[in-house]
């Protein structure tokens, strides 16, 4: 952790052109971007997407194949609103990839859990897991049916796919973490991304049931390369941009203890 070198030329901006836009719901859209410069990007790593004149924001792509990059963005404030106003043919600037993604090199049964737009790096991970031919279940937790993002895509990858809605409008009713508790025993690894409350609950479940997990956390990312200190995970000294955003249970348990 943090010991190894890093090629900081990833800080150079590059760009791509929007080829296609998908409206998932009122507040979430996906953008397919044809990139100008292939840069290796593992699932769970993030880019900083820049709207010149506004800010740059961290995003974990929901798909990448070296030429096509898909980002899935929830409207939250000025910059994500501006991203939502982008059209087909527009140019988008970004740099990266930054940080450590999900490691899926071990053979085993994977439980993939995405909450809200947190499903974004999870579905990209699902593509990789399919490539490796491992067994996996894809679980997405949302408020209501119309918020669901990648259920069809996960099914088309041939994964067991479960949608959990808080209001019961589709799939299983309840909190995604309650569903996970029922099935967690059947899996070797859990990979998760979503709201903080969900992540902490998943960590607790994984510790309780002895399942190794990797969870992707958020913080205010500014420099992206581990020098400005703005993205510290709670008061651990760990940096979301450089040590994370994906942390494994070993590290999380050591630093977060009883959180």
């Amino acid at each position: 952790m943090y010991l190894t070198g890093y090629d900081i030329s990833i800080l150079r901006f590059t760009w791509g052109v929007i080829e296609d836009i998908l409206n998932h719901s009122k507040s979430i859209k996906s953008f397919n971007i044809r990139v100008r410069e292939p840069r290796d990007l593992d699932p769970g790593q993030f880019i900083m997407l820049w709207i010149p004149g506004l800010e740059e924001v961290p995003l974990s792509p929901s798909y990448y194949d070296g030429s096509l990059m898909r980002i899935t963005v929830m409207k939250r404030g000025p910059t994500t609103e501006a991203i939502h106003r982008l059209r087909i043919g527009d140019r988008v600037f970004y740099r990266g990839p930054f940080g450590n993604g999900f490691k899926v090199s071990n053979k085993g049964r994977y439980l993939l859990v995405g909450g809200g737009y947190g499903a974004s790096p999870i579905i990209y991970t699902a593509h990789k897991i399919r490539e490796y031919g491992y067994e996996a279940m894809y679980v997405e937790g949302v408020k209501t049916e119309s918020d669901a993002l990648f259920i069809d895509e996960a099914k088309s990858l041939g994964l067991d796919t479960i949608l959990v809605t808080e209001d019961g409008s589709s799939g299983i009713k309840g909190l995604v973490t309650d569903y996970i508790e029922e099935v967690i025993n059947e899996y070797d690894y859990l990979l998760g991304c979503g709201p903080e409350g969900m992540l902490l609950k998943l960590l607790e479940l994984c510790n309780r049931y002895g399942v190794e997990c990797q969870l992707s956390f958020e913080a205010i990312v500014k420099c992206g390369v581990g020098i400005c200190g703005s993205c510290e995970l709670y008061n651990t000294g760990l940096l979301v941009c450089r040590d994370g955003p994906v942390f494994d249970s070993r590290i999380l348990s050591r630093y977060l203890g009883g959180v």
Partner: protein
Amino acid sequence: MDLRVRLGKLELRNPIILASGILGLSGSQLRRVGEYGFGGLTTKSYTIEARRGYDTPILAYVKCGLLNAVGLENPGYRELARVRESLKDVGIPIIVSIAGSKVDEFTTIASYVDELGFNAIELNLSCPHVEGMGLELGDDPNYVYKIVSGVSSIVSIPVYVKIGLHRDIMATVGKSLDGGAEGITAINTIRALAIDVYARKPVLSNVYGGLSGPAIHPIAVRIVYDIYREYGIPIIGVGGVSSWDDVIEFILAGASAVGVGTVIASKGLDVVREILDGIKTYMMDEGFKELSELIGYANK
């Protein structure tokens, strides 16, 4: 092999110091950094009020280093009590960097820092991208004297003045020493600009930023050399260190300690170990037993 150095009143187990603004925002960050073998740590520059810092992008990549315009983000000086608390047992000197725009801001923070039991103070009179809180202060030797003498007269710990590329560097240094500074930290980043050729706009939200990294190293070496030659005082050399030989170069020019910053982005915190190993090998090969023999050697 003895890597210990004296920096004025401070004893350092080795000369490598974490430069201000690199992971020094919280006690937990400094604690973690402290595990990597540094001889001393400098905090981020603290101000009276908390500062959110500038919008992103705050960092720009250039071929010869980095530009940053963080905007002196910090939680405000009151937070230093908690920083101190979490650093109680780190066992290496902690230097608190202070930024401000008026004399009383510097003195208020400095007396608090002294009270909390930190080891030294660094007055940041050279931030190149926050108006009224940096470079202009250091450009005005009379104001430098006011700030430094105001602070030095009320604290018991050593005071260092961090300088940049000022109009008349020797005047700024001279007035700092007249005001009671024990030594100088040289240098801060240099005001610069980067434009993205496809966006056709400045990369940094603040437009201007401070250049750090290899590009500024020879300039920093020149300034350290000149200050040592003129005044022979304790100096922390900072600017563009990327490996052990840059550290030796600073020491030969007259630095007693050497700050590292930007290289941490590319090499990670383990760079400290790499640098210390390099220094040891060099001393062995060249027949030096004590690193302190080398301070100012090129100046003799």
